[in-house]
């Protein structure tokens, strides 16, 4: 058994929590779309990547300061969200799950190609006015950029939880997700709320793209961060925002602990699939995730 070093474990835990919250941010976009439109978005990672490209491109071409590039990215992704909902998702309403999944996979390919063609194949950087030197708390050091990411994540997660529980628009969206026909009967414009859901997911992706892009780098590999979304949402429940938070934290912590303690014994790479193993276990015991709603199947 590996030696249990307290210092190191604490470091791994804090890193796991911060990264986990950032995963939650991306998962939030996924959950928003699923909650409102029942669509599984396999292109979530590509959304984040595309947003990062827009921000980095704006900085490069127009030399805009970071807050402006963030705004441009948000604006661009809102537009993209509306556009995609109209062109791709509206015709897919009512289709079987697999069709929607494939549509988003096709979308992912289109986004990847467009991003490279429009912005070039080189790696881009996003510069945020955050100091690089880690914050030394004595027993752990915290990189400021991760603090920023975690902070933004928490703010948004809290905001969206309130939104869905209290605001009119949020409640309407939940109604649409529950039953489109009844919502239409009550006078809710279903299509408008679909579009809104995609736009909101776009906003979240934009922020995710800017922060992840600043933390890592913006290029076509950023999209692969999106694969991490699946263990997070499955653990937490596909349609639960609180689940996105808890799921993200669990995945982040488990990943880091596995990488720190298992890797030296198996030659590395455990970080990638340990969350998936955990996910399968949870699925066998509780298929709808920790916070998900149990789906009742009617014959």
């Amino acid at each position, binding site marked *: 058994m590996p030696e249990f070093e307290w210092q190191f474990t604490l470091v791994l835990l804090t890193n796991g929590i911060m990264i986990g919250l950032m995963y939650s941010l991306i998962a939030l976009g996924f959950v928003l779309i699923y909650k409102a439109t029942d669509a599984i978005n396999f292109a979530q990672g590509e959304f984040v990547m595309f947003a990062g490209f827009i921000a980095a491109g704006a900085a490069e071409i127009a030399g805009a300061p970071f807050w402006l590039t963030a705004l441009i990215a948000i604006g661009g992704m809102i537009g993209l969200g509306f556009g995609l909902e109209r062109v791709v998702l509206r015709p897919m309403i009512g289709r079987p*799950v*697999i069709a929607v999944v494939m549509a988003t*996979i096709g979308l992912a390919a289109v986004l990847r*190609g467009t991003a490279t*063609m429009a912005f070039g*194949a080189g790696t881009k950087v996003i510069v945020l006015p955050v100091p690089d030197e880690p914050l030394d708390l004595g027993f752990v050091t915290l990189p400021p950029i991760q603090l920023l990411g975690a902070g933004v994540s928490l703010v948004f997660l809290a905001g969206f939880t309130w939104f869905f529980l209290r605001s009119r628009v949020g409640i309407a969206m939940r109604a649409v997700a529950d039953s489109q026909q009844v919502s239409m009967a009550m006078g809710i414009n279903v299509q408008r709320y679909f579009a809104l859901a995609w736009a909101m997911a776009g906003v979240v992706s934009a922020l995710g793209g800017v922060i992840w892009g600043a933390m890592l780098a913006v290029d076509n590999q950023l999209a692969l961060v999106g694969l991490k979304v699946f263990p997070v949402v499955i653990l937490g429940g596909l349609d639960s925002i609180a689940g996105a938070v808890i799921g993200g934290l669990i995945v982040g912590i488990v990943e880091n602990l596995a990488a720190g303690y298992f890797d030296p014994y198996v030659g590395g790479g455990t970080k990638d699939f340990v969350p998936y193993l955990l*996910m399968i276990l949870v*699925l066998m015991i509780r*298929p709808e995730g920790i916070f998900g709603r149990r789906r009742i199947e009617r014959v």
Partner: protein
Amino acid sequence: MFHRESGVFKTSYAADMALYPLPIAKWAVAAFAGLFIVIAPLALGEYYISILNLVLIACVGALGLNILVGYTGQISIGHGAFMSVGAYTAANLVVHLHAPFWITIPAGGIMAALIGAVVGIPSLRIKGIYLAIATLAAQLIIEWTINHVPAISGGVQASIQVPRPTLFGTPLKTQGQLYLFLMAFVVLAIVGTANLIRSRIGRAFIAIRDQDIAAEIIGINIFRYKLWAFAISSFYAGVTGVLYTYYLGIANYEQFQLTVSIDYLAMVIIGGLGSILGSIFGAIFVTLLPILTRWFLEDYGWLLFSGQDLQNAIPNLRLILFGCLIIFFLVVEPDGLNRLWRNIRNYFRVWPFSY
């Protein structure tokens, strides 16, 4: 004029259930067989035969995936991993035991089928999109295992060189020889799938897809049949992996990653879920798409781009076109190319009359 059913009267149950109930179907199949098995390898140049070889291998894989996704209704994103299981099994058998291809191909398939059945176990409790993501997990876990266990992967490089298959002592080296070799397996796969669908197991699969709760009520053990579906589909995948290995001369897990699984999923959806012809159409379409786009852009791309920009644009445009076509097919024709073909065929059933 082509009214196919006129004059054909079936007098026994066996005749009604036959694979090719109509005489015109038998003629058509014979014509295609003649065209593709005899004329094509003689008439086409080596480059074109090599493209056809890639298509043939994809056909086998697509047929397998269609059994699982199209006929049983279970989404699987792990097809690539099963292919790599088959590939490495065969490669290890060849390298360590010098097994001939008629042992390695079934062995690779069976190994993949076993792993496929294990992956299908969660289907007892989870369905739909959750099952799909579980298969995604399987894809990643199998990839990791092959990457990290040198006993399977043959060392740091994770590639195993495999000599060409030999038939009665002569190695099959040229594209033409490999074409006939692969064609034999495609024919076996098609006949196998067609018979499977007509049989009791196939009908159980379709029942599970359509209304699994009702199926369970009338006494079909859906868990057992789901496992069969996973196993059979993975068997096809394993065979595909072995064929790839023989074609390329090397087994390398990097050829069977997530993008490959997604490609095969695209094949069955674009081709048409739940049909044999659909799998073949899909395999042809998805395999040829990048090649055709490149030809097209190389010839006419100079209209839009210049020199280096064109080189930059070709691969990106190909990706965009791939995605757009998937979306296009899903939006416009959700039943895939197979439906298009059926529409054409039905049109000619009563031609030149309109009904």
